[in-house]
């Protein structure tokens, strides 16, 4: 076909992980094509818009107008609404900034473009090109026209509903307990506190939580994640969220401005994220933190490693599974232990009764922990409610 193209690195999906991969591959000297199936990067937004901020320097992101506001910390509410406040530094990867996600994604696409990557809009991958079992690019469709893009290195950064990994034969399937079904309203005229991101635990959101992330005075993202295995009837996510809002006068009086939904993986890390000619990154590689549901930081951190390895593989002519172990090991060294630990914690949390949540939060609200970690939390709980920590023996 006349439109067929060749490049060093082909990145499928221009979300944060894809744009970050494209940027670092380009900075490392590779020719990069970055595909986005929509006409616009970052839109529509499918995100709670909370993120931590201590990792931004590590991957070369500068805070810009995408920062909506900066919060001081998180408030964790138990089922009887005892509150535990955590300073932003200890609060996990959903707390620090509340962002305009579409602006954030656009900034990362700009960074990728400035590094030399070419963004192809309205361009969807429809299948992978394979030769001798190796991935050698993708068949794409842009403006109704199909053509091929050949590349020694292809990256699947196509998000939660990733097709690329499945096409490549990399197991990415999720069990029902490894996914949250999510729904969020942006609401105005609500009593949110711009100093805090709020999290409500327990039966209000089985296997997940209700969040309130403030966007401005009186304006907040109010959302819910419910573990799919805990859903008993269709539209439970909406039912639970509407029920929570109705039970909270400060939110029941609010007006809904928009609504977004989506799936979030809460799985253990994948066993494999590379194959010959291909690497997966971000939500497509199930890198979302299974405890918090936050995926941006992990996707960007892995994206930088992925981009650097991709450029080197293209340059050296070694786009093999063996060479890609540099990425596989690199992202795991940086992220895997925490992902696995938080997955274990999530598996435990979903089994807790509301009364147990109440006891744990009650203890945490009453003591001042020097350092917030699992061990210190368990010790504090053990001192007051020794029977509760029995459920957490695996962590001691």
């Amino acid at each position, binding site marked *: 076909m006349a439109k067929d193209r060749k490049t060093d690195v082909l990145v499928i999906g221009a979300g944060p992980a894809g744009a970050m991969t494209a940027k670092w591959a380009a900075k490392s000297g590779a020719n990069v094509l970055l595909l986005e199936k929509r006409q616009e990067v970052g839109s529509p937004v499918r995100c709670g818009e909370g993120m931590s901020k201590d990792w931004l320097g590590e991957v070369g992101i500068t805070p810009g107008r995408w920062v909506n506001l900066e919060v001081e910390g998180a408030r964790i509410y138990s089922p009887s609404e005892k509150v535990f406040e955590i300073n932003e530094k200890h609060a996990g990867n959903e707390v620090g900034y509340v962002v305009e996600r579409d602006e954030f994604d656009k900034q990362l696409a700009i960074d990728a473009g400035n590094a030399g990557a070419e963004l192809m809009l309205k361009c969807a991958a429809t299948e992978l090109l394979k030769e001798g079992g190796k991935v050698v690019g993708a068949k794409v469709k842009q403006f109704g026209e199909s053509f091929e893009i050949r590349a020694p290195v292809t990256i699947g950064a196509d998000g939660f509903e990733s097709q690329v990994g499945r096409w490549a034969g990399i197991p990415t399937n999720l069990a029902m307990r490894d996914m949250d*079904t*999510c729904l969020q309203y942006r609401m105005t005229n609500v009593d949110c506190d711009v100093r805090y991101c709020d999290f409500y635990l327990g039966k209000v959101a089985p296997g997940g939580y209700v969040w309130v992330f403030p966007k401005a005075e009186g304006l907040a993202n109010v959302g819910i994640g419910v573990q799919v295995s805990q859903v008993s009837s*269709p*539209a439970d996510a909406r039912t639970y969220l509407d029920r929570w809002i109705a039970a909270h006068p400060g939110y029941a009086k609010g007006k809904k401005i928009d609504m977004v939904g989506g799936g979030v993986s809460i799985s253990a890390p994948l066993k494999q994220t590379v194959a010959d000619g291909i690497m997966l990154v971000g939500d497509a590689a199930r890198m979302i933190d299974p405890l918090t549901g936050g995926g941006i930081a992990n996707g960007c951190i892995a994206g930088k490693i992925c981009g650097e390895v991709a450029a080197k593989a293209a340059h050296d002519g070694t786009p093999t599974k063996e060479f890609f172990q540099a990425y596989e090991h690199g992202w795991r060294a940086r992220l895997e232990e925490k992902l696995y630990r938080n997955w274990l914690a999530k598996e435990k949390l979903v089994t807790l009764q509301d009364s147990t949540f109440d006891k744990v939060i009650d203890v945490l609200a009453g003591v001042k922990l020097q350092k917030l970690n699992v061990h210190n939390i368990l010790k504090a709980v053990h001192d007051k409610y020794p029977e509760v920590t029995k459920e957490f023996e695996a962590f001691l």
Partner: protein
Amino acid sequence: MPSKKHLHIESSGQVCIYCGACVGICPLNCIYLDETRITFDEKVCTRCEICVKACPVGAIEIG
């Protein structure tokens, strides 16, 4: 052989918000999201009903 149940994905926009939750969870990868249209492969689908649970707004019905 018993006939398969009827599966209906309401993707005209009256209920569906095109979030892709069903696409990501489908164990057989037989649900396709194309901007504002969702289709599924009638022959491949086994009516496991996981997508019904995964949909946050109740746009998928089975019966």
